[in-house]
C-alpha cells in the first residue's frame, strides 16, 4: 500500500513539475503556495495531515491507477480497431454479433474489479465514522456567512467565538480581486479568528447550523461534514502536524457562499494550553454585563464595529442596501420610535435577511443604536441591551 502511494507521489511530483514548467509559466498572477491550503496549480488532493486523509489519498490513487489501466487497455483495443478495421484500408466487415461466453466474461470481470475496489474503502468508512473517545469536542455552527465555534468538552471547554472572513479581503473581492502581481497568498482564506486545536489529539466536530445548510470542510484533514439546521451531525480528526490548515464552506448557502472560509490552527500541546488560558482570561475581561446601561456615543462606537463585521456585506457600509436588500438609511423601521419592530427583525430575520440571534444582547443593542444614529438617521434613540434580553423572552 505504502509503496504504491510513494510511487504515485513521485509520479505526481514529476508530472506537476512538467506541467508547471511548460504550460503555466508566465501567467499573470504571481502567487505562492499556501501551506495547509491550496498550492498553485495543485493537481491532486492536499498533503494529508490525518490518517483518514492519507487513506483517502491512497484510495484515490488506487482508483485512479486501476481506472487508468482499464482505460488504456480498452481504448487501445478501440483505437487499434479504428486503425486496422477501416474501410479505407480495405477491411471487410466480419459477421459476428453475439457470444454468450464473451458477454458473461466481460460482465463478471468488471463485477470482480468493482468488489475489489469497494473492499479497501469499507475499512476507511468505518474508521471515518468512529467519533467515539474524543479528547476535545467542538460544536461548529454554520451561519450566513460565518462559522461559530464552541468548545463543548475537553481542554478549552467553555470557549466560544465566531470566525469570519477578513473584511479587507471581502472588499478586495468586490474591487476585482488582488491586483496583478500582488501576492495575496491566503486570498479568501484569511479569517479574523481561527479555530485552534491541539496536535495529536482526537477532535470531535459536531456540526449544526442556524439558517441554511453549510458544509464544514478541511481537505488536509479529510473532513467534510454538512452543517444542517435543526440537526446535529459529527465527524472527527486527529491532526498529526502543527500548522495552519484551510478549508471553505462546501454547500451553497446563499450570496456570500464563497466568503466563509475555515482556518484551523493546530498547536502543540503546550501552546494549546497557553492559548486556552489566554482565551479564558480574555473572555472574563470581555464579558458584557447585559444589564449595563450604556451611553449613546459608547454604544454607537461599538455598534459601528458590529455593523462592519456583520451587516455591511449586504446593507453596505453606506446603509443603502442593494437589489432585494432593503436600505437602512431612512428606513421607517429604523427610524421608528418603537424599537420593537427593528429588534424583532434582527432577532428573527425578515424575507431574505437571516436571523442574527447568535449575536450577544449588547452587540444587537449596539448595532441597532448605531443604525438609528448614523447616515441621515439622526434619531438620538438609544437601545439598551436589557431591551434585547426582554425581547428574547
Amino acid at each position, binding site marked *: 500500500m505504502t509503496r504504491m502511494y510513494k510511487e504515485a507521489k513521485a509520479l505526481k511530483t514529476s508530472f506537476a513539475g512538467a506541467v508547471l514548467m511548460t504550460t503555466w509559466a508566465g*501567467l499573470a*498572477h504571481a502567487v505562492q503556495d*499556501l501551506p495547509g*491550503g491550496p*498550492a498553485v496549480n495543485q*493537481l*491532486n*488532493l492536499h498533503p494529508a495531515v490525518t490518517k483518514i486523509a492519507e487513506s483517502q489519498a491512497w*484510495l*484515490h490513487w488506487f*482508483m485512479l491507477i486501476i*481506472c487508468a489501466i*482499464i*482505460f488504456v487497455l*480498452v*481504448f487501445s483495443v478501440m483505437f487499434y480497431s*479504428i486503425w486496422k*478495421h*477501416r*474501410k*479505407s484500408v480495405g*477491411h471487410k*466487415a*466480419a*459477421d*459476428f*454479433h*453475439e457470444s454468450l461466453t*464473451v458477454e458473461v466474461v466481460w*460482465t463478471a470481470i*468488471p463485477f470482480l474489479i468493482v468488489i475489489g*475496489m*469497494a473492499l479497501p*474503502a469499507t475499512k476507511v*468508512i*468505518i474508521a471515518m465514522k468512529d467519533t467515539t473517545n474524543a479528547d476535545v469536542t467542538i460544536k461548529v455552527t454554520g451561519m450566513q456567512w460565518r462559522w461559530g465555534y464552541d468548545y463543548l468538552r475537553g481542554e478549552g471547554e467553555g470557549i466560544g467565538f465566531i470566525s469570519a472572513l477578513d473584511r479587507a479581503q471581502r472588499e478586495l*473581492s468586490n474591487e476585482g*480581486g*488582488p491586483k496583478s502581481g500582488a501576492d*495575496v497568498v*491566503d486570498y479568501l*482564506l484569511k479569517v479574523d479568528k481561527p479555530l485552534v486545536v491541539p496536535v495529536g489529539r482526537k477532535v470531535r466536530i459536531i*456540526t449544526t447550523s442556524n439558517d*441554511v*445548510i453549510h458544509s464544514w*470542510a478541511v481537505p488536509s484533514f*479529510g473532513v467534510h461534514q*454538512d452543517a444542517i*439546521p*435543526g440537526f446535529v451531525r459529527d465527524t472527527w480528526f486527529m491532526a498529526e502536524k502543527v500548522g495552519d490548515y484551510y478549508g*471553505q*464552506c*462546501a454547500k451553497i*448557502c*446563499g*450570496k456570500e457562499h464563497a466568503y466563509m472560509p475555515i482556518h484551523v490552527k493546530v498547536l502543540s500541546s503546550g501552546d494549546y494550553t497557553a492559548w486556552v488560558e489566554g482565551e479564558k482570561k480574555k473572555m472574563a475581561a470581555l464579558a458584557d454585563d447585559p444589564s449595563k446601561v450604556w451611553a449613546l456615543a459608547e454604544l454607537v462606537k461599538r455598534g459601528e464595529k458590529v455593523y462592519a463585521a456583520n451587516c455591511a456585506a449586504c446593507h453596505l457600509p453606506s446603509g443603502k442596501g*442593494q437589489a*432585494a436588500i432593503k436600505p437602512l438609511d431612512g428606513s421607517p423601521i429604523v427610524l421608528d420610535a418603537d424599537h420593537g419592530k427593528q429588534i424583532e427583525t434582527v432577532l428573527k430575520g425578515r424575507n*431574505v435577511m*437571516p436571523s442574527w440571534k447568535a449575536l450577544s444582547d449588547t452587540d444587537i443593542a449596539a448595532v441597532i443604536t448605531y443604525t438609528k444614529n448614523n447616515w441621515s438617521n439622526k434619531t438620538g434613540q438609544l437601545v439598551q441591551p436589557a431591551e434585547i434580553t426582554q425581547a428574547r423572552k
Partner: protein
Amino acid sequence: MSAVLDHPSVHGHHSHAGHDAHHAPTGWRRWVYATNHKDIGTLYLLFSLTMLMLGGVLALLIRAELFQPGLQFVNPELFNQLTTMHGLIMVFGAIMPAFVGFANWMIPIQIGASDMAFARMNNFSFWLLIPAGVMLVATFFMPGGAPSGGWTIYAPLTLQMGPSMDVAIFGLHILGASSIMGSINIIVTILNMRAPGMPLMKMPMFCWTWLITAFLLIAVMPVLAGAITMTLTDRHFGTSFFNPAGGGDPVLFQHIFWFFGHPEVYIMILPAFGIISQIVPAFARKKLFGYTSMVYATSSIAVLSFIVWGHHMFTTGFPVAGQLFFMYATMLIAVPTAVKIFNWIATMWRGSMTFETPMLFAVGFIFVFTMGGFTGLICAMAPVDIQIQDTYYVVAHFHYVLVAGSLYAMFAGYYYWSPKWTGVMYSETRGKIHFWWSLISFNVTFFPMHFLGLAGMPRRYADYPMQFADFNAVASVGAFFFGFAQLYFVLFVVIPAMRGKGQPAPQRPWEGAEGLEWEIPSPAPFHTFETPPKLDASATKIVA
C-alpha cells in the same frame, strides 16, 4: 423555405393515393395545431436548441466571471442565479426536450407506425414547454432576481428565495407534466404500434432505450413534483416539511430530490446510449454486438438507478451502513455500463469503418463519456467523495457525462438523421470542424476542473483563492471556444439544413445503416407508414 419547414406536398410511396388532399393546416396553424409527430419533433428540437443557446450564454457569463480571481462582471447574488438557472435550463429545457424531439421524429418511423399514439396529447406536451421555458427565463427579471440556490434547490435555502422561486416551481411542474405526457405517449406507441413482424427484441436500440427512459420518467417526475410542492407549501402555507424551525427535516428534501435526481441522470443518458447503439453499427457496417445484453444492461442501469441516490449525500452524515450500501450499489452501475462500452467496441472490432461526422461524434462519445464514467466510479467511493463532493471535480464529472455524453450523442444523432429530416446532406467539412473544435475545447474547459476539484475548490463560488487562478483561466478560455463551436453548428450546419441548402440526401445516405427509417424517402414524407409495412425476418427492411 425548406424540406423541414415547407408545407408537406411530397408523398412517400407508402401513402395512400386517396390521402393526397389531406387537410393539414398551413402557416402558423401547422405548428400551433401540430399533431404530426415529425412537426412536433422539429418543434421540440428547435425549442431545446434555443434553450441550449440560452443556457450556454449563462455558462459563459459564469466562466467570464471566473476567468480571474475577484469579482469583475457580476455580484455574488447574480452569480448564484446564473449557476442555478444554467443547470435548470440545460437539464429541463435543453437535454430532456431534445431527446423527446428525437423520440418524436424517430420512434414512429423506426417501428413502422403512422404517428405517435396520442397525437393531440403530443401537441399539448410540446406547447406546455413554451410557457414553462418563458417562466424559467423570466425569473431573471423578477424582483430579487432568479432562484439562486443551485439547480438542486436544496431546502431550507429555497425558503429564503424571492418570488421567482415560486415561478420556477410552477415552471418545473409544467415541465414535469409535459415529460409525463411525452413518456406515456412513447410507451403506448412502442408497445402497441410496432409494425407486424417487429417483436420487442428486434426493435431498434434507440426505441428500447427510450422505452426504458419513459418508464423512469413516469416513475420519478411525480417525485420531483412532490418535493417542489412541499417546498412551495413550506414557503407560503405554513407547513414545515423541510423547515427546521417548524420541526421539518432539510435532509428529507435531499432524499426526495435525489430519488428523482438520480434516475433523472439516466433519463438524460439512456437515449444517448440508444443513439450511439444505432450509429456505431451503421458506420462499422456490422450488426450491433450483443443486442440482447445491451437491452439487459440498459434495464439493469434503470433498475439500479433507483437505489443509489444516497451517493449524492455522503457528506450529510449517513451512518456506516448507509454509506456502505450506497457506495456498493453505485459502484455496481459500473458493470452494465462497462458491458455497453465493451459491446460498442466489439461492434467496431473487425468492422469496415468509415468516419463521417456521426461516427466521429459516436467515437468521441465513447472515449470522453468513459472518462466521465471513471470519475463517476471515483466519486462513488465514499471516502474519496468526502474530499471531492461539491468541488469542481464533480462539476468536471457531470459535464463529462452530460456534455460529452448526452450532448455529443445528440450531435451524432443530428448528423446521422438530419438528412432524413431535411432531405439535404450536411457539409462533411463543417461537421468535422464542429466535431474537432468541440472535442478539443470541451476538454480544455473541463479537464482542468478535475485538478481544481482535487485541490479543493468548491463549486458555485463566485470568487476563489489565487492558487486556483490558472486552471480557471484555462477553463474559461476553453468554454468560450466551446460556445463558439456550438454557434458555428447552429449558423453553419443547422440553419443551412433548415433552409434546404446542401446536396439532396439519398434515401439511405449511410451505406451500413439499417432500419425502417432508411426504407422511406429523404426527406421523410409528411405521412409515413399509414398502412403497416410488411417486414423481413430481421425487422429492418420492408418487403414488397
